[in-house]
């Protein structure tokens, strides 16, 4: 998919010492990355789509206020936008995406849904990356018993029946006002973010651990250690910077799976609260009347697929640009 130009490849393959004549300028890793990345048009499109989605999500309120003059829960046209059986009407000049089952503007709900999806995905991914990096690096760097404990924990979590477990937590904590664990988990976005983060950090941790295991044996780490650097310094100043590339790539790839996970939880009625627009919940409602109101499924699916695809393409592009040796 992405193309790496031959001259970039050549530069990369140039001897570490460079040409003594000085005609070939040395490039920083950042410059190298950018040179490769900007030639990957597909990844660029992915990035563009993500920018657009973020802009839509951030601007949802403004669009609702200034353009459509309706919020995501506005029912002022609910009568006109449904027939006498309470069935929603399809796309028209007022509701460009049609009405949802309650007679609300589907367009506004879909773009507010982008906000929910991105919010959940980015926060949950952030938390899981943080936990994954901390534990993965600790396990890989120190090895021994610490590694055993962390690695086995990861194995246990990865072997849990994810969806069943997630449904259990969501059902237990998401349907009472008090939440659970003494109010630690309150119903709503919090539960969804917690569940997603709790189940996705092991993937990051495993990758980080593997990379740390090989990095800690490298010469520059040995050199640093022989100069008397502390473990902490080595971890944060020597190892961590070298982990940035895989972390970035896998974070980008984990975001779409988290978006899909949130949609699945909401589809099953255990995600975000009822009135919060969510693509998953919209799909769940659409399945009741696919024949009569296909737009209820088409638009949320379109946005869901586009978003996950964009993040995947960007992730692939980043991986290619950051680590051109990685095969496809």
């Amino acid at each position, binding site marked *: 998919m992405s193309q790496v130009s031959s001259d970039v490849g050549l530069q990369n393959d140039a001897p570490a010492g460079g040409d003594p004549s000085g005609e070939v300028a040395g490039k920083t890793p950042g410059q190298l990355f950018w040179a490769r990345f900007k030639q990957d048009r597909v990844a660029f499109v992915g990035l563009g789509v993500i920018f657009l989605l973020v802009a839509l999500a951030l601007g949802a309120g403004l669009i609702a206020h200034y353009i459509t003059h309706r919020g995501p829960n506005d029912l002022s046209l609910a009568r006109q936008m449904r027939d006498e*059986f*309470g069935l929603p009407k399809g796309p028209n000049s007022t509701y460009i995406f049609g009405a949802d089952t*309650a007679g609300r503007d589907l367009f506004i709900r879909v773009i507010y849904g982008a906000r929910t999806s991105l919010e959940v995905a980015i926060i949950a991914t952030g938390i899981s990356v943080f936990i994954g990096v901390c534990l993965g690096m600790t396990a890989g760097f120190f090895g021994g018993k610490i590694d055993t404990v962390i690695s086995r924990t990861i194995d246990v979590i990865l072997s849990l029946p994810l969806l069943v477990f997630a449904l259990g937590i969501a059902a237990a904590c998401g349907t009472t006002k008090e939440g659970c664990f003494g109010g630690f988990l309150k119903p709503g976005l919090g539960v969804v973010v917690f569940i997603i983060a709790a189940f996705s950090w092991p993937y990051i941790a495993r990758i980080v651990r593997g990379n740390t295991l090989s990095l800690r044996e490298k010469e520059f780490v040995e050199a640093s250690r022989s100069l008397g650097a502390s473990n902490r310094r080595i971890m944060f100043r020597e190892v961590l910077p070298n982990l940035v590339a895989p972390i970035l790539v896998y974070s980008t790839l984990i975001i779409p799976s988290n978006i*899909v996970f949130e949609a699945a939880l909401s589809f099953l009625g255990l995600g975000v609260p009822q009135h919060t627009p969510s693509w998953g919940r919209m799909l769940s409602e659409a399945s009741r009347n696919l024949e009569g109101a296909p737009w209820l499924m088409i638009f949320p699916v379109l946005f869901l697929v586009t978003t996950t695809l964009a993040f995947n393409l960007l992730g692939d592009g980043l991986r290619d640009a950051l680590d051109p040796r990685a095969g496809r």
Partner: protein
Amino acid sequence: MTKKRNLALIGLLMVMAMVAAACGGNDDTPGTGGTGTTSATGADVQPGGDVTIEAEEFGFTSGFDPSGEYLGNAWGVMSNMLLRTVMGYKHLGGAEGNEIVPDLAAQEPEVSDDGKTYTFTLRDDVSFGPPVSRPVTARDVEYAFRRIATKSVNALYAGYYVGTIEGLEVGDDPGKDGISGIEVKGDNQIIFHLTKPTGDFLYRLAMPATAPIPEEVAKCFTNAGEYGRFVISSAGYMFDGSDKLDISSCDSMKPISGFDPTKFMKLVRNPDNEGVEDPNRPNYADTWTETINTNTNDIEQRVLADQVDFVGTPTPPTLKKFLQDDALKPRLHVDAGDRTWYITLNLNSAPMDDIHVRKAVNWVMDKEGLRLAWGGPTQGEIANHIIPDTMLNGELDDYAPYGSEGDAGDATKAAEEMKQSKYDKNQDGKCDEAPECQGVLEISSNTPPNTDMIPVIEDSLAKIGITIDDKAVTDAYTPIQTVSKQVPISPRPGWGKDYADPYTFMGPLFDSRTILCEGNSNYSLVGFTQKQADECGVPYAGDIPSVDDDIDNCIATADDAERQTCWADLDKKLMEEVVPWVPYLDATQVYATSAAVTNYDFDQFSGTPAWSRIAVDPSKQQ
């Protein structure tokens, strides 16, 4: 790329799952149609054939045990096809279907002058079906009451008999001669001695729990729901395979093969009923089968394709299809459901503990919006008070204490009412920014139409400054039946009559003496006392009105018309002085049928098709 492929696969699977959920397709349902030999033509009703029903669930409350079943679906099957009761119904729709007529009784009872003694002579030609196959006697009716009085059986509406029939108390074992108020003389005479005149007593003797039960079988099944798989027929049909039941001992009895609570129920003709006169049950079909199919969409498609004969409460898209197609329209049957759907307001929980807030909620609610969430006018009339109009003989047809234009709610009147509330200190017509008014807990069901009602309720309540925190759950009834949960508002409940007297609404729903800390049906806590609050461990909001005296007064009224007026007055009092509900739908009962159904009648008592009057043309079944 593995990751990407996985994601693509997950996405694809999700879309496929959704399409499957929407389009359905369940081909492994047992085929039941097309074996009849008689072809019905024109309006002629030909006996024979197999009636097939599919439903998402049986919805039984006690495994089909007649003593514990408390919902219309089970009553419809029992009273139309399986069980005869001392008094019964004509099994027709409308007012005629609510009339009470002798069933097992040979004629109307003799009632003593003080209205406390009812003497019945039973018919001598009714027999139990196989394998019992012996005449039904008064002793079998008396045994049904002993079961009602047996605690472990958990007879859910025992309250209609306890305190009414002398000596009938629920206990561990009432013993063979345990109920002093029920006297049996010979095989055919049964006398009921009541503690007080009870105007609707005959209705109570038409409830399935009072149908005769053979002790030789049922004595082995005295825990709740157990007898459900061994029900012995006293009417036109029986469980398929009943004749194979070995009743020589308790140990030898294995569940009858014709009923599996998770899969299906099949009824066939009861050979012991042949030649028994029964003017109200013509028993047209040869067999009747209900099969569980969790895919509603699939059931509806199968009814449209004449593969299944009945579907109850079709979804709005299917309803639309039936109503807009002239060929399909005659196959849609809409009858009065004698059922009110309502939003319950908790009189002991802020901010609904203030009558002005409750009135404001009634004024502001967009009832038409709620009805649209149900599927529009076919689903029923907008309800403006508690008892369905069909049960009050039209007395309150024009009564709408909180009526508004187009039933869309009246925000101005709501604001005026709200201003008088203690929660509107700044007098702006909106509930203040106090915690009592913000994020008010609401428990709803997580299935339609509840899910579609929530936006309407949120939108309406926002107009009077109340924001709600809706919790949509699978089982919404448990929290609202648990006093300690203090649920201020819930749009989940509906209440259908047990029998055609309004007492069946007023008693269970508003009598403070029936309030239980758990499993309570007086969700609004009308008449709740400080003592009960202490018992249930909740703070008492104070000053909660009671209508217990009004209920006692109405129930003692023997004259039917006077009693109805008494209930109508109480309905008005509740709506104006207590305001426990926002009633919004006086619901209809809708059934769609296949083209094979040649005769349809509605059973007003149970709110289901009058199954024994359903006739099918096997040649039209696919």
